[in-house]
């Protein structure tokens, strides 16, 4: 319901802003901006980007069009963005998946230097869950079991599985990754006892936890889950492991600096809007407002770290 009001409000703001644009022709942006989204309409990335874009429209005073350029595991839209005219009218939404993970696994014609970084908007949450009536009631129980024997866990793929790999690497546990196609299937595999644990995100895990069939043992993201404030993060439980994955905005590298500054400012302010938090929450994200440099640094660190983890897990391309 809230969301509808945002959209209506945005429409109104755009209408109001239009005449003033004609008055001062020198102002940029002077026409609509397109954001390429690497995943399909209705998914978590798409909806979050739409929510931020709706806010940014107010500051920029031009309509923002969302184009879902799906394909290549999130790389197709980045390939298109890297080749787009660098005039600030074509931007991209970017997460770790396309920028920091896929380049280690697929042969892509872009690298981190192909883009200019505008701002960070949100952080994904992750958690480790087990069957509620199973033998493990704390993260320490699960950890001890994985020290003694092989423990299977379900996840969709990087970065969801990388936290468990990191535990294996640092502490000699034997968590064994079983890939599943969707988060809900990964969670259901735990409920059915087909695997012993799962490393997934809140939207799929929360219904299972609230119905009493699954237990959340730890948050593996840097922050705790809002719904379960008593469940500590891995780091708080004494394990030096965290999954950091961010969502932000980028542009082709050669975009003029003044336009980058305008966009960066608008998107950062949009991410600060209070209405955004509720929209993000539904998809298991929390706001993470960052300026361009901070976002770029986080992505570059992620690129290096994920590369190392993927190579060790044997998932990187040779």
């Amino acid at each position, binding site marked *: 319901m809230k969301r509808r009001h945002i*959209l209506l409000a945005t429409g109104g703001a755009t209408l109001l802003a239009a005449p003033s644009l004609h008055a001062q022709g020198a102002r940029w942006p002077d026409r609509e901006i397109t954001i390429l989204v690497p995943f399909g309409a209705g998914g978590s990335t798409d909806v979050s980007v739409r929510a931020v874009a709706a806010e940014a429209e107010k500051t920029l005073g031009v309509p923002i069009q969302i184009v879902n350029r799906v*394909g290549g595991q999130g790389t197709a839209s980045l390939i298109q963005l890297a080749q787009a005219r660098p005039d600030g009218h074509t931007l991209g939404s970017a997460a770790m998946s396309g920028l920091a993970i896929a380049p280690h696994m697929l042969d892509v014609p872009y690298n981190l230097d192909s883009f200019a970084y505008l701002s960070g908007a949100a952080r994904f949450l992750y958690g480790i869950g087990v069957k509620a009536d199973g033998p493990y009631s704390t993260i320490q129980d699960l950890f001890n079991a994985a020290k003694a024997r092989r423990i299977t866990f379900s996840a969709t793929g990087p970065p969801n599985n990388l936290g468990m790999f990191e535990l294996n690497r640092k502490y000699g546990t034997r968590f064994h990754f079983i890939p599943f196609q969707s988060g809900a*299937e990964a969670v259901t595999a735990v409920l059915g006892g087909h695997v012993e644990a799962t490393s997934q995100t809140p939207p799929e895990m929360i219904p299972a936890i609230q119905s009493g069939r699954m237990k959340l043992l730890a948050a593996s993201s840097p922050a705790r889950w809002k719904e379960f404030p008593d469940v500590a993060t891995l780091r708080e439980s004494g394990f030096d492991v965290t999954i950091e994955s961010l969502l932000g905005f980028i542009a082709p590298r050669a975009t003029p600096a003044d336009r980058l500054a305008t966009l960066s400012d608008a998107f950062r302010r949009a991410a600060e809007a209070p209405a955004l938090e509720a929209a993000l929450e539904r998809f298991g994200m929390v706001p993470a407002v960052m300026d361009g440099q901070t976002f770029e640094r986080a992505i570059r660190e992620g690129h290096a770290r994920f590369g190392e983890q993927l190579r060790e897990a044997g998932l990187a391309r040779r």
Partner: protein
Amino acid sequence: MMEGLLQGFGVLMTVQNVSLCILGAVLGTLVGVLPGLGPATTIALLLPISLKLDPTGAIILLAGIYYGVAYGGTITSVLMRIPGEASSVVTCIDGHAMAKRGRAGAALGIAAIGSFIAGTFGILGVMLLSPPLAEIVIAFGPWEYAALMMAGLSLIAFFAASGIAKAALMAFLGLFLGLVGLDPISGTPRFTFGVPALVDGINIAPLALGMFGLSELLFLALSKDAKPEILRPPSTLLGFMPNREEWKRSAAPIARGSVLGFFVGLLPGGGAVLASFLSYAVEKRLTRHPDEFGRGAIEGVAGPESANNSGTAGAFIPLLTLGIPANAVTALLLGALLVHGVQPGPMILERQPEVYWGVIASMYFGNFILLVLNLPFVGLFVRALEVPRRYMATAILLVCAIGTWSVGLNHFDVLMAVLFGFVGFALRRGGFDLGPLILAYVLGPTLERSLRQALLIADGDLTEVVNHPIALGFLVAAALILLSGMLMRSRPAVVQDGGS
């Protein structure tokens, strides 16, 4: 229960929601009729619009499209031998053969009525059995899915009009086409030849439209007849309807298809496609007119068309109670639910009963609307056959190209469709049936993923399967299906229309 349903109808019976339900059903039918323009594309296009509606209204609209498509997909299968959807592939065989015999109206009529009955049965199933059936889905692990897919693949024995060897060859080709893309375990690209567009695998739209649609056009172009056959439609209105004999023969297949389709549709991975193939195999096995199969047996339309519709309804159970999408379309519906703050899961009945019951009520209503919408138009659709084929062929080519392109906004897919058109043409001239190819292509990826998951969990120990009785049951079923299909083949051979 009744209270809930009444609440649902209370939610539905607003001017807005009723109009949305009708709009969805109409759009869905149109989408089904236009080959290639799949439900996934349409729902994706409409999703931004649906954001402006309240959650219940949005889901009613999107769900209307979803089951509307299952109706519409039949029409092109019967009239032109072009499956509007993968779940209508089977209908091409006997549905089109019926059209050639001048019984297109009967085929479309029985499909619409069978779909309505099966759809209603499926909704009753969703309403009454959701919680216990969700337990079945949970109990299904990698071993069970792998074995179920094996049983599904063994159905090719019933689609082997041109010999089991040829059918097996086609199944292998289908399995191979399903391998293209990223390895489901390691994520490394396979058979992509460095083409970025192939990283996500071969889409069903270029494959089905090329193999069936474009190859059909090639046959048409090749036929030297100055006057290609025009199927004479019946002169009276009632002539469009199935006759008494056809009704009698369809009743049992519709009933069996409804039940089979519902239970197969429950399980993600094969769903409506597997349901339609399974129902066809069952009817072929049980029929008293085995010689008619492939030449226009009404059972071969009534059964599968009922099965794919109750399968469509069955897919709502894992979606609503577990948040598991059964296919690309239900995945989009899931996204739509989440956008509107509806969290599918075991708690949905307690948390958001108005959404749950609203959807159920809209399914009843939408099914009714579809029947009312489809039956009177059967005559009109059949008239399309009177359009001279040279104009029709041009239109089909254009629609196929646009449909293929619209799936991923990708020129490469159109090229693929053309390529598959020539491959399909060559295969059909060589006497190969394409049904096994499509079946294997749809089931292959689930089979591979499940089997590899199972082996990863068991640390490579194949004998672990003995601890999974359901899986063992499916493997036995697979053996029996193969055997039974082979035995049938020892009877006088059935010549299947090769399209030429």
